[in-house]
């Protein structure tokens, strides 16, 4: 049986009176390509921040690779890679300098860091501007660099917050192939994206968070099966998503209210 890479129990985060993430129980098996979906403000980024050490939970726990995050933060961080919201790059370094910085922060020796930096820059097609500062990179180039930095130490879990946003089609194709190969080698990928087609194509398992609560979790087949109707097997992820988060009607746009526009 494949072990669990990520397990959360009653993971909760409150900001004053607002409960952004409410008792979320997640289970992600090792080697899964896992899509984490939800409408804007549902609690996706808050959850990722709690799973990557950027935010402390108000209550509940998170275990990554069998280690409790709160008890073993350094051991957990050593085994995960993160492309955080806003990327968080040191913009006054060059791409190579940044990758070397990150590699050393994860404890890689200098020759290994140097070699991996060059390989990653080549793969990401960023090596033709060795003296360009990250501040002068385009958004897509910064995204690719953030992804390179997230994998330089060979993480066992990779957290990606909107990884393909702003990346051109050519690079996106290469990245998807890379991520696919990583999952084949047992790396767990935890991804959020608003582009449901990408999630549907890449992810084997999906969880949907809505108003801070986990409302669905499972493989795409399981989610399709959960939707009533004979056409279940033909249901797209978008239909599943809308049927779950829009089921109380509050998320459906009320076009008749905009009659002056339509």
């Amino acid at each position, binding site marked *: 049986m494949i072990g669990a890479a990520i397990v959360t129990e009653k993971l909760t985060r409150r900001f004053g009176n607002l409960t952004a993430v409410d008792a979320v129980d997640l289970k992600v098996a090792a080697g899964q390509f896992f899509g984490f979906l939800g409408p804007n403000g549902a609690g996706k980024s808050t959850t990722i921040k709690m799973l990557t050490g950027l935010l402390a939970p108000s209550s509940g726990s998170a275990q990554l690779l069998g280690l409790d995050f709160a008890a073993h933060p350094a051991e957990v961080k050593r085994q995960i890679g*993160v492309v955080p919201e806003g990327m968080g790059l040191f913009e006054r370094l060059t791409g190579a300098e940044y990758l070397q910085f990150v590699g050393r*922060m*994860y404890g890689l020796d200098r020759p290994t860091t140097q070699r991996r930096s060059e390989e990653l820059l080549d793969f990401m097609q960023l090596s033709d501007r*060795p003296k*360009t*500062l990250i501040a*002068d990179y385009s958004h897509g180039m910064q995204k690719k660099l953030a992804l390179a930095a997230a994998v330089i130490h060979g993480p066992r879990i990779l957290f990606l917050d909107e990884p393909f946003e702003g990346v051109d089609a050519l690079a996106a194709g290469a990245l998807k192939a890379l991520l696919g190969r990583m999952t084949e080698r047992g790396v767990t990928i935890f991804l959020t994206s608003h582009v449901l087609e990408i999630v549907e194509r890449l992810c084997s398992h999906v969880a949907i968070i809505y108003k801070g609560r986990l409302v669905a979790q499972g493989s795409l087949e399981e989610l399709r099966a959960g939707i009533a109707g004979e056409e279940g097997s033909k249901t797209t992820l978008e239909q599943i998503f809308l049927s779950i988060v829009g089921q109380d009607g509050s998320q459906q746009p009320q076009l008749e209210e905009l009659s002056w526009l339509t």
Partner: protein
Amino acid sequence: MADLARIPGVWEQVRLVAGLRWRILRNNLRKKNNQWDLIGIIIAGIFAALAVMGVSVGFGFGAYTLMSGGHEAWIALPFWGVFLFWQLFPVFTAGFGAGFEFRTLLRFPLSLRAFYIIGLAYGLADFAAIASICWLIAMILGATVANAVVLPAMLVISLLFVLMNITLERLIGSWLERILARRRSREIFFALFIGFIVSVQFINPILQRYGHSARPWVGQVLPYLAIFPPSLASRAVIGASQNHFGDTLLGFAGISAYALLFSAFLWLRFAKQYRGEELSETAAPSHSRVRPVARTAGQSDALRLLTPQVAAVLRKEFRYLTRNSFSFFLLIMPPVFVLLFTTEFAGRHPTAAKHPVSTEFFFPGMMAYLILILMAPAYNSFAYDGKAIQSYFTAPVSFREVFLGKNLLQVAMLAFELILSIVAFSYLVALPSWPVLLATIAAIVFFISGQLSIANWSSLCFPRKLNFGQMRGQRQSGMAVLISFATQILLGGICAPILFMSRWTGDRWLPAEVFAFLAAAAIAGYIASLDPLAALAEKKKESLIDALSR
């Protein structure tokens, strides 16, 4: 076609923009840090208002004295003062103003006329404009009390003078905005600014030495100033007081011509912006493909004594320092100050003091002043990390290592600067006696180690993001500045009784011994503080990331 009921008028649009600015200010106050900042701004505002009122009294009294004492010709001086302040002050504070750019309003259906008027209105809401108008009013009052005949001329010329100054200030501001939109030009501007500030310090010594011989040259240049607006304004006033209405009309016409000329140029600038002038940075030009030379595995690492994480932070900090023109230029200041102050107060022929100050006092004082300048950035040491602060929290490192890396660079920089300054000092004046030299060095170690722990705490508790090479909207955290000053005063307070005891007991070695002990205690305290600070960083990470990611 949009079903607009009506197009709002120009003044309604101005009112909407004013409302927008008010809401931005009010909403900013939801954050605690911004509330502290507002308190600081209010205190600064009270002092600024007092200063403006004080100077207004000076302008009013000056105008009265000149007009009543038969020195009407000198009325040009206050006009020049107002003119130079109005035009130069906004240039020097261009980077420290609010971050709101009224050009963003262009997405709305503003007419060019409304855009122009709103642009001018922004010019009126400027500190330099408000202060200058207060001074002009004071001048009108002073001149009128002295000679009521000049009132109509003063009113008309002041109105034209205000219009001309607002237009010119907006024109210069608009060009500055265009020039400073590029990072490289911002950095060059910053370098020139700092160069200017440093150069100003040398005016007194230069005047002392060359002032006398420059007088004839100044006398030759002065008549050419008559064609400039302040001289034209004074010509109009003098004409009115002496019943030479031709001069008055010439003054009016001259200022009006300037106002029209600047308005035309400003209209052209705003029209260009209105049509969608692109100011943002473009991507850097592509360089030819140059593969970095791979280092061999056996190559030695200059920082191998440090852990990889501390070495990585240290390298990153060094690269940031060398790429931050502002920080880099600040490093030039200490040796320059040593040069300046020794010229003014020490050496064989001081320019500002009758007798040279004793090296025994001057050397420790100079070093304390340099530490005051050089330690200031340490109190907000994450300022330039911005969003990348997240990297420290996602990586498997303790903040103990992050602080060690940052502090090592700060100490190395301080050591380099102080050694350079001591060498310059010994060359220009002379080193003090051994007891004073060693006591100063021990006190430096005590000051730096003692401050680093507090500075690290301040960096965690009162962070404020600063952007590289950018001046607009750049202001240090008010609380960090306050803590920095309080710490320096506290440490200074500890020094005072030690020096007093030395004088009282006549033991010249006492300060060196006590400071050596205090330095050792401060170093131990610094090391002991690292783990609690790392724990504090974990507690404060949300506010830290929030403050630096804005």
